[in-house]
């Protein structure tokens, strides 16, 4: 049995109190939302914060608001509080209608119990993962520690002086593809950043949040004509973190793709936007050749490491296939093309 270490549990009742606590306690404190990611890390001794600041009682972080109440740029937006559970994301009617890709990506996360406890904010801020570090103390002692714990080398890429632990959130690529906006509260007030800007490619510190900052909510805007898709690779049909996640979003005007986003998760420490693929698609009719060329561009651009499920070479090959399929799937949802209403059918292999 692995036991939780001891810590002090703090339960602020408001966002300002939470921000205040973080500012006061500094590096000794860790935010706790659903705990599905954090508590296993504590049990394995990867982290040992003295304080856990629980967000459950912070009202500003909960709830889903539609455009009328939300501060969004256009009329068809949705604001999702950071404490929204993953399960709620899979069920929410407005979300399912307008942003089915989010509900779909959410439905592929972990297992039903973990989806009930896990939250949107926790998912976006989920720690990076690596099969060398998400291990018991005995295992890590036997392997020799690495940069991400107390060691000084990377076991996956011993020549590099950085950590390559993989971003493992299923929602992050989809949120970036849709250009979601993240509202952040901190000691110096609030700021809103694009989801993409929440991340940097550093396995030790892959979030751009500064000390004391809290993700408050996620704002989704729906410019007309956007269709999106997310495909997830994992060994089994449930339970597993992504070995690869491919999110695409296309803004279609007539037959032409006005704007394209292609985002790949679990192959680096941050979700990667594949600029070359986006350029191939943007401003063109998405012919089969273009989709294939975009998929090739993804294949060329990524360099998965051997630190999550399934071998890196394999994941790279599948990234090509999944990009093409995700693009095709997204295009099938464009009303003019297929007449479909955009609902996704979750395939067991996605």
């Amino acid at each position, binding site marked *: 049995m692995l036991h939780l270490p001891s810590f002090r549990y703090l339960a602020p009742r408001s966002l300002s109190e939470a921000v205040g606590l973080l500012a006061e306690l500094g590096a000794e404190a860790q935010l706790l939302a659903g705990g599905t990611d954090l508590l296993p890390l504590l049990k394995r001794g990867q982290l040992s914060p003295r304080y856990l600041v629980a967000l459950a009682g912070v009202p500003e972080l909960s709830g889903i608001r539609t455009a009328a109440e939300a501060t969004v740029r256009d009329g068809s937006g949705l604001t999702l509080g950071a404490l929204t559970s993953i399960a709620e994301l899979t069920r929410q009617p407005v979300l399912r209608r307008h942003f089915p890709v989010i509900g779909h990506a959410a439905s592929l996360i972990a297992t039903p119990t973990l989806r009930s406890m896990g939250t949107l904010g926790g998912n976006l801020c989920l720690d990076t993962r690596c*099969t060398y570090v998400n291990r018991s103390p005995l295992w890590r002692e036997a392997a020799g520690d690495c940069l991400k714990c107390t060691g000084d080398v990377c076991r996956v890429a011993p020549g590099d002086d950085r950590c390559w632990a993989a971003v493992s959130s299923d929602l992050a690529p989809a949120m970036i593809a849709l250009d979601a906006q993240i509202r952040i509260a901190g000691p110096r007030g609030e700021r809103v950043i694009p989801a993409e800007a929440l991340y940097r490619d550093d396995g030790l510190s892959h979030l751009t949040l500064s000390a004391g900052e809290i993700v408050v909510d996620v704002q989704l805007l729906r410019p007309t004509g956007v269709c999106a898709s997310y495909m997830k690779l994992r060994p089994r049909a449930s339970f597993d973190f992504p070995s690869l996640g491919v999110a695409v979003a296309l803004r279609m005007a007539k037959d032409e793709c006005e704007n394209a986003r292609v985002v790949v998760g679990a192959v680096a420490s941050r979700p990667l936007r594949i600029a070359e693929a986006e350029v191939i698609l943007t401003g063109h009719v998405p012919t089969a050749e273009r989709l294939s060329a975009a998929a090739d561009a993804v294949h060329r651009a990524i360099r998965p490491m051997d630190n999550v499920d399934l071998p890196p070479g394999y994941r790279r090959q599948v990234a090509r296939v999944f990009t093409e399929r995700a693009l095709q799937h997204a295009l099938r949802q464009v009303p003019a093309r297929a007449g479909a209403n955009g609902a996704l059918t979750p395939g067991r292999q996605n």
Partner: protein
Amino acid sequence: MSSTGSTRTPDFTIIGHRRSKVDAWPKVTGRANYADDLPFAHLLYARLLRSPHAHARIRAIDATRALAVPGVTAVISGADLPVPYGILPVSQDEHGLAVDKVRFVGDPVAAIAAEDEETADHAMGLIVVDYDVLTACMTVDEALSATGDPIHANGKANNVHKRVALEFGAVEAAFEAAAHVREDLFFYGGSNHLALEEHAAVAEYSPDGRLTLWSSTQTPHYVQRALAKALQLPERRVRVVASVIGGGFGGKTEALPHEVAAARLAMITGRPVKCRLSREEVFYSHRGRHPMHVQLRAAARVDGTLTGLHVRTVLDGGAYGSYGVASTYYSGALPPATYRLPAYRFEGARVFTNKPPCGPKRGHGTPQPRFGLEVLLDKLAEDLGLDPLAIRLKNLVAEDSVTVNHLRVTSCGLRACLERVADASGFLDKHRRLPRGEGVGLAASCYLSGAALPIYWNGLPHTTVHIQADRTGTVHVACGATDIGQGSDSVLASLVAEVLGLDLVDIQLDTADTALAAVDLGSYSSRVTFMMGNAALRAAENLREQVLCAVGRELHLPTHRLILHSGQVALRDERSPIMSWPDALQLTQASGAVLAASGTYAPPPLAGPYKGAGVGPSPAYSYSACVVHVNVDAETGQVVPSEVWLAHDGGRALNPTQVEGQIEGGVYMGLGEALWEEQSFRGPLHAGPTALDYKTPTALDMPIVHCLLVETDDREGPFGAKEVGQGPLLPVPPAVANAVYDAVGVRVDEVPITPDKVLRALDRQARGQPARHGPRRFPDIAYPPLTVVEPPAGAPQL
């Protein structure tokens, strides 16, 4: 009165009917007490300090700082357990805690007892072990070519643990005369049992010198023996009680370090001591499926008749002997009991490596060669222009026959199994006819209904059942047999209730306790229903006889006109009740009887006349056939098993629902091994000793399973029953591999068939190269000279 085998009663009231298990209520309502749930006053908690090195000499252990921690009561090490033990008399190589050397990452070095688990955990970190690190051998190849310190000092050269070479019939002649010879290499990855319940044990030592261990074990009797030896206590002062068990599958079939350490700590502290393993520790305790290299060569006529088979195996044994010698023999025992073979050669070897010890996982030593053989038959059929069903039907072992390697086959429903799965799945209409990406595969297998020989040599019964009744009508049944979730308690109660005309609730059971019941060897080798069942029938029939005689005497009726039915003595013809069961018991007791009866069972002498003949013989064999339908994504290599048909001849189905449960479980486990699960290593380390990293299939990965019961009536089985606990797993992995080939035309001669392997084979196919993924070479092993054994009279001839 003969009660071995089928008592042909025309209509059963319990046997053959669907009933819930006798322990369904406590399990479903959470009231069952697993070892970890047992309440004890003044309990201490133990943890095992495990080695971070795969191979190292222990120079010194310093527990001073740990012992100084408040709440810590004792720390022990190998020095406290100097006497070696082991499940097989030939492999007494374990100590509970390492003596002098550690042999794998996770090998227990010391044990600590404290007032609570957190304290034990914390203080354990303060024990300082000084290691002298040695070169580790992580693969068979590394072990065979190692020049450094051998893993076991008294082991044979090059870390070889066991070698065997046997020949039956004219093998060379068969190959020389063969119209067609097919040879292939296979690799079968190792896997863990992944029982839901992690092992746990509580030990208590009384001041008068008696040790009791409550443990999640499949074999209380063997644990009792090992504890007695390791702790130097008389066996009669060691009591082992198997608590309610959440699955075993072979992972709890011998004394394990946590049991031995808890017992020693209880003796030292005088307090009850609990030691429970984490999921990670279960992967170190292991005793799971041996990774196995398999080389097969088959000789056949143009019509597909097999004329000879040559099986070579190399087992990657891990660090200790465990059941390994038996596993080695099993890897060559059963092909002739499935297919008619006039000539057969088997060469096998087990090699020590610096990994957790392998042992007897469900199917013990036989799924690996089975995988190879059934894939090879698929290839052979294609070579010869036959379909996979035809080639198997052509070579079936005959009912009531003897094999070239001296195995006696009684009932055999393999033909019916094959025909029924083929029929139900539409196999012949689908095979080679489905669109690319979809495929069906077929495979067959057989398994033992209990090993005919005990693990340690003795001429005693393998099991004993005592029944005791009293005037109230209560029937008390005691047997050492252990219900590990497979349902043996239900089988025991059902058999006794059927014979005595009672309901299941009228039967009180005392099982799995070495103090309250006589020896049953344990839940392994699919022996319990067959052996305990026969003993139970004998005992129950004996009691019935006593009661009916007494009643007959009193009422002046011949005994043969009386039956026990619905809690009454009744007239056989009219079925009319004439006396209640309690009245009949009182009458019997008043006549001077003690209302007790016993039955025992030992298999008939079945071993052939050669060294090694003790592994393979069984009083009866079960047969299975399987068709798997898969969808293969030809771009990603992902394989989705979409439907499975499994026909099983387990003799008479004593409770069809329980039989189907075992079939479904076997299919589940077989699919796990076929497609996902592997106890794999990264350098010296287990690659992922967690339930998240070890890829056992989830509910969403499970396909529809059709269970088809083929009921033979085995003449020696209890009411005709054989086994179902292990057999149905065996044909599943090769059926998957054959289905993958049918779907996309690539051969993956290795399990698990992970998508990256399929994709590599598909890439080769696209480049016009041989569309295969699998081993290209066989380990460089020197087998001993062949022991040539004369086949028995009546064995298949060329």
